[in-house]
């Protein structure tokens, strides 16, 4: 029937690649989200004029293909600055900024969606700007921003396939290595796709669960 030379060890090798994809994604989404919140709040708070320099930098990260960013950043850090740093670190750094650039827009949109009248009501009760931000704006903005943020996280996970260019062996690179050896591209790509699905699906479902829970109120 179906004949393959794929061994259990090869599957473990793929799983390790999937693990690397997961680690790179988790680190990048974590730091990218924190940075994105800082940038997003800053952009909302100071207005478009004062935020223009930041917006410009973020636009660069959003518009240049990730592959180019990775190659250039790697060359810049290792060759120009002469810093000895792993491809893994470069990958996480670039992906974090890439995530932050998108996340900043999501955060800003979320904050703008909170009605001004609610914020006035909070302030009129004597709440400070910070209390208004943490107790009213953030919970409400999070509900608005969550679907886009889940989409961003899943997107970053798939985009992380590009970090092979800085010598990080993640899921897709592991698959390619096996394809070269076993010459069974379609079968291996199916397995690779399955791995991607297995790590994305829980994230997507978790987002769906949160949305449902929050829609009660």
């Amino acid at each position: 029937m179906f004949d393959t030379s794929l061994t259990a060890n090869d599957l473990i090798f793929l799983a390790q690649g999937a693990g690397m994809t997961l680690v790179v994604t988790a680190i990048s989404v974590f730091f990218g989200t924190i940075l994105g919140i800082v940038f997003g709040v800053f952009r909302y708070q100071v207005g478009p004029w004062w935020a223009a320099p930041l917006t410009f930098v973020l636009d660069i990260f959003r518009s240049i293909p990730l592959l180019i960013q990775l190659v250039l950043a790697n060359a810049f850090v290792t060759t120009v600055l002469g810093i000895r740093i792993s491809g893994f670190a470069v990958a996480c750094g670039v992906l974090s900024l890439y995530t932050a650039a998108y996340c900043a827009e999501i955060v800003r949109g979320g904050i703008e969606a909170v009605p001004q009248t609610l914020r006035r009501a909070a302030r009129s009760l004597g709440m400070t700007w910070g209390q208004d931000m943490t107790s009213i704006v953030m919970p409400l903005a999070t509900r608005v921003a969550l679907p886009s943020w889940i989409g961003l996280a899943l997107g970053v996970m798939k985009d992380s396939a590009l970090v092979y260019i800085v010598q990080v062996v993640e899921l897709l690179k592991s698959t390619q290595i096996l394809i070269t050896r076993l010459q069974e591209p379609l079968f291996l790509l199916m397995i690779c796709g399955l791995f991607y699905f297995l790590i994305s699906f829980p994230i997507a479902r978790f987002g769906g669960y949160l949305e449902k829970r929050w829609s009660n109120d």
Partner: protein
Amino acid sequence: MIEIENVRKSFGPLEVLKGINLTVAKGEVLTVIGGSGSGKSTLLTCINGLEPIDSGRILVDGVEVHAKSTDLNKLRQKIGIVFQQWNAFPHLTVLENVMLAQVKVLKRSKQQAEAEAAKQLNHVGLGDKLSVYPSRLSGGQQQRMAIARALAMSPDYMLFDEVTSALDPQLVGEVLDTLRMLASEGMTMICVTHEMKFAREVSDRVAFFHKGVMAEIAPPEELFGAPKDPELQKFLSATH
């Protein structure tokens, strides 16, 4: 005591308050009537410092609201305000809505805040809605919740900015009843309203605003019975 001295305020080229002088004593119920754009709502938002003023000054218990050194967050604890649009925090239950500022601003314990919130919500007739989310409440109920939320801060003054204007007609009564109850309890109140009957009943004094000027102020019998200002006469005959 709230003292308003020669307050002027413009939005761009439009001057909405043209030198208002007004004093509201402790325990007084003042209603403010007038057409839209007369500046009456703006005055309320100036009193608790949500809007800056261009000149003049407003003193609340001797503290100048718009002075740089004034801690507005602290001052606002004394002055409750309820807006035309009911502003329930949608992600919190009715009880949590009323607890939040008590815990954050007054630093009350959760138990204290909860007890006070339950007390105030009972007071406005929402004792059976404590664990409900605001989206399940009618407009009138949300507005009463907003009143309870402001009262839970134990304010000395309450400002009401057309609190019934956005309500369906059949819900106006329950909110006005809540205001009547507060007035009878001796709360110092400034109510901007379009409800003439209500103004006549509860007020110690009624002020008529027209185009940024306080055209007339008098006890209700006098203001409604024998209006002197020609604009007020026009306004009253149009609303009756």
